[in-house]
């Protein structure tokens, strides 16, 4: 029998056999598919970006590189309270878990809020998704990421409301994926 395997009896006395934790494996597989989703968006962006004679195209507003740098830092810093939350969940420290998760969520929400504000400003400058490929790729790529942050925040909210620490490790994987992806997108879309 493989090391670390778990043999259990369920409520009706049936034997069950688990080699590894299913939730962790399932999340890893799901994140593999998510990675390919973003690979698709990024590939589309790069096709347009690399074949364009000038980028950004003339007469288009510039992206807010500086403000977004700050919100990037905010999002990245959420990695620390998330790590604390994982430890608290492991140690059964409910109070610490709640505080760390709340802080994680606040940092994520701040990032999203700044993005929303910047989008509103860009729209008033005339950068819309239909205004051209520049706007189109910007809003789909950055928007796809923003939706992922939003989904993560919703999940986090549910964990906090239900006060159920069982899902925290798997949530942590998802959070780190969403946070870790951002610097790449920031570099590609804002800096490069």
């Amino acid at each position, binding site marked *: 029998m493989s090391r670390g395997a778990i043999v259990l009896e369920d409520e009706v006395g049936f034997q069950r056999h688990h080699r590894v934790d*299913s939730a962790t494996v399932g999340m890893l597989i799901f994140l593999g*598919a998510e990675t390919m989703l973003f690979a698709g968006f990024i590939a589309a962006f790069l096709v347009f970006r690399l074949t364009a004679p000038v980028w950004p195209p003339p007469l288009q507003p510039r992206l807010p590189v500086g403000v977004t740098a700050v919100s990037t830092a905010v999002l990245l810093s959420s990695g620390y309270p998330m790590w604390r939350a994982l430890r608290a969940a492991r140690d059964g420290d409910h109070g610490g878990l709640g505080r760390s998760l709340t802080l994680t969520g606040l940092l994520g929400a701040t990032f999203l809020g700044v993005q929303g504000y910047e989008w509103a400003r860009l729209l008033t400058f005339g950068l819309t998704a239909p205004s051209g490929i520049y706007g189109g790729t910007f809003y789909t790529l950055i928007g796809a990421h923003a939706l992922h942050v939003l989904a993560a925040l919703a999940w986090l909210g549910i964990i906090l409301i239900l006060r159920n620490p069982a899902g925290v490790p798997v949530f942590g994987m998802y959070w780190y994926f969403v946070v870790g992806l951002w610097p790449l997108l920031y570099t590609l879309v804002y800096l490069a």
Partner: protein
Amino acid sequence: MRESGAAVLDVHAHHAERGFWRTYVFSTDHKMIGKQYLSLGLFWAVVGGLLAHVMRWQLAWPETAVPGWGEVGPETYNVLVTMHGTIMVFFVAMPILLGAFGNFLIPLMIGARDMAFPRLNMLSVWVFALASLVLLVSFFIPGGAASAGWTGYPPLSAKAEYTGVNWGMDLWILAHALEFAAFLMGGVNYLTTAIALRVPGMTFFRLPLVIWQLLTATTLFLLSVGPLIAGAVMLLLDRIIGTHFYAAEGGGDPLLWQHLFWFFGHPEVYVILLPAVGLVLDVLPVFARKPIFGYRWIIYSTIAAGGLSFIVWAHHMFVSGMDPRLAMPFSITTILISVPFAFIMFAMIATLWKGSIRFDTPMLWALGFVAMFIVGGLTGIFNGSAPADIYISDTYFVVAHFHYTLFSSVVFGGFAGFYFWFPKMFGRLLSEPLGKIHFWLTLVFFNVTFFPLHNIGLAGMMRRIANPLEYEFLVPHQWINVVATVGGMLLLASQIPFVVNVVWSLLAGKTAPKNPWGANTLEWTAPSPPPHLNWGETLPVVYRGAYEYSSPEVAEDWLPQDRTLAARSR
């Protein structure tokens, strides 16, 4: 590890009596979910088959109305082609080969009581049912169903003015999105289950080959669908809010869709092919009473083919206007990918070599698959090399090619599996004579329908045309279309013995024993049909590989995976 133990204890407690709804509709039992996928797939097969019949009638006698349908104009014909292709690939092949067999076989063959996430599994089939509903509704809305081809190329798919189809196209995209969500949930379940829930002794290299094939197919799907979803989001945005991703006039690029589509599309044809190959690989040794030939090399070949399938996609685009310098590398990878499949075909034939072959119905279908798929594989070599393909691209030669591969997989591979596992699924035996009649009729009329299409394709008949008689050079060849259409009608009629067989068996068939074929794999150690949670209190333990037939160590000519031989335990 302690905490995961706690999670594990979330158990559906009672497997005794559950009501009608919990048993047949909102079931978390992988076997019932498999049957639900099977039923939905069979329903769509009827629809897809009828659409094909309308198309074929139109092609043979373009000037007459189709009985029961009416006049078919070019617009309607486009709807027929599109919906037939969409339905057959996404709503028949995938739910039956991956959905039904994946769900039914994976837990049973690895010794699990159910999938790793049973409720997610139930959600999967329900989301698929919703996708089916959306697709069905799209036939009945103003403007009608999608008509931009099953590949949905823009600009045709991006602007309603080009096809006259408005909502139908949006619903087509929505149905795909739901379907992908369903198979994403299913796929996460399949892989997790196979990694986490194998019983003691069931190492990866003792897994039955069908499991390997199902898992590889699932992996291909999970890793290729993302870019298509990204592409579909952009297509939807083009249609709804007027972005220009695929519109050349707005700086977009219609070829981008083709790249994203076929990056998914080629792995997708293996999502259909590999499970069929797996079903056949598990049927052949049972009826040859011999171990499979080259077990590990089949696995390595499968993985190699899976990897290569991500770098062949532009062979669908040789005539698309992409950079012609791409043609050479993609021809080369395409020829390369035929090597592992050639090996697998060789291993199938070598498994038969000097076997004591029994020609039961499942075996006939498996052999039919091997023979027919080789035809499709050989024509694939022509399509794959750019110089030949530039001539035959978008002709009926290609239509013949992909029906020899897809039809073989879905119908021959699918029926091999269906006739083989039916006793386990439903606890009844099927009639052998009816099964054999079904097989021979299907084999003959499949070839009558599709073989001549090679010829008319080489004569220049383009695919997706509604009236071949409009082209003078095709008029002398019209008799071929008539032959194919008559063959197609008889092919559809050949499915009647199948329906009779299943209905008769379910109502009055003989009860199936545990192991009617003398097979080795774990599902045959459970009762037929297996109860909820599959085995009683204890799980089987695995001591050997899946293919020890005619072993000298035992008197019988099979040696189940859970049998331990006291003297020489391994």
